[in-house]
């Protein structure tokens, strides 16, 4: 039986009086491509940001790769490739410097893997960050998240801004890394991505998480989560 790469137990996070997430529990097994669905403001990013230690959680516990998210924060980040929904870097840096910087901080020489990723995603490494569109910044973010071949990928709305060809290449890369033993948590609004690429899925609404029996749900069921949310 495959081990849990992500174990979230009764996670609660609020922002003062505002609701973040309430009593979220979730397991993601090794080798999974896990789809994380939900409307804007449902708590997907809060859950992800809590996992990465950006947010201080109020209650519950998070275990990543068998390590405690608070105590072993630094060790966890060594094994994680994270791509935020907004791919921002230092404007004045060149793409190649950003990619090398991310590898240097990890103390790794990732030049071969980075070169392969840049070639497949058609990343112009000589451009400055400020010259890039959102889609091209996202491609740089993908390279930074993948070049060190992490055990766990966490992607927060990764395909927004990417053209269809790049979206296809992105999922090809995920499949290749997962085939080699990695695990992937994918937060998205795009049901077709979950249907096509994910093995398991959950949906968040109003800060609470519901596991789906299958990632292959129809549009009506999917939209009902959004409609109910709007009515609420």
């Amino acid at each position, binding site marked *: 039986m495959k081990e849990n790469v992500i174990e979230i137990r009764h996670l609660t996070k609020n922002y003062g009086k505002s609701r973040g997430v309430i009593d979220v529990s979730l397991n993601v097994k090794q080798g999974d491509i896990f789809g994380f669905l939900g409307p804007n403001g449902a708590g997907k990013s809060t859950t992800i940001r809590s996992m990465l*230690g950006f*947010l201080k959680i109020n209650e519950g516990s998070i275990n990543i790769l068998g390590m405690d998210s608070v105590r072993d924060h630094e060790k966890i980040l060594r094994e*994680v490739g994270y791509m935020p929904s*907004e791919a*921002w*870097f230092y404007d004045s840096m060149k793409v190649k410097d950003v990619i090398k*910087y*991310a590898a*240097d901080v*990890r103390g790794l020489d990732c030049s071969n893997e980075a070169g392969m990723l840049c070639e497949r995603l058609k990343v112009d490494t000589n451009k400055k960050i400020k010259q890039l569109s959102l889609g091209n910044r996202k491609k740089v973010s993908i390279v930074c998240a993948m070049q060190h071949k992490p055990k766990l990928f966490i992607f927060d709305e990764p395909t927004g801004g990417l053209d269809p060809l790049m979206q296809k290449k992105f999922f090809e890369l995920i499949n290749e890394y997962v085939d080699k033993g990695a695990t992937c948590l994918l937060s998205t609004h795009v049901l077709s991505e979950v249907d096509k690429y994910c093995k398991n899925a959950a949906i968040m609404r109003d800060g609470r998480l519901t596991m789906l029996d299958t990632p292959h749900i129809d549009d009506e069921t999917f939209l009902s989560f959004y409609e109910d949310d709007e009515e609420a």
Partner: protein
Amino acid sequence: MRSVLKRELLLNIKSLLIWSLSVGLMGFACILLYQSMEGEMKDMADAFSNMGAFSEAFGMSTLSIATLKGYFATEVGAVHGLGSAMFAAITAIGIISKEEDAHTGEFTFSLPLSRSKIIAAKGICVAIMLIVFTAICIAFYYIGFEILGEEMPMDQFMKFMGMQLLMNAEIAGICFGVSAISGKNRMGLGLGIALVCYAYDVMGRVVPDLKDYLFIGPYSYSNASEIFTGVATEGKAIVLAAVFLIGGVAFAFLRFNKRDLAS
């Protein structure tokens, strides 16, 4: 941590060069102007030294601006004191908060480094910037003295620059603490802190009732006219500077390790 420090230094090098060259060159130009004004200054020195409280505030009652030492203390002392404090303030107040202000925090803090290590790298970067800034200015002023060929007490000059560096570090320490609680770059606030400290010192030297509390401000122990006339530095002013510096940095570490990061 070394990579973050290197990156911070590279990101700040342009600002360091602009500020150090600007302040250093202004001071250098002021020093060179001394020779052309030397003759007229003898009359001016008498007038300036008899302007009551204002002569005291700017040190002209104790030092003659007709000498290079007095001229440097009153003219370059003010330029360097204000310029270096503003540089220290804007460097420190943006170095942590810029991550959230420019939305680069998610990239930086997803790298495998603890928040403490990132803050430490940023703190060391500010310290290096202040030291290099001071070294560049020392070089400019020293070349100025050499060109003039006039005698300058180097021990007092180096003490003055050392105290200026401590004053810069104190202001930077306070601003570093502010940077850790802010999600936006508060450059205006940083400049305000530097200018308020300067104004407090000038007022303290003009208003007799404030004299006993001058030591609270960072310009008290770095005052050029006192250093160049050999007035002993007040120990309590140095202790308070250390408290503000260490307190600001410690607060930055404690606060930043506990807070949620904005996306």
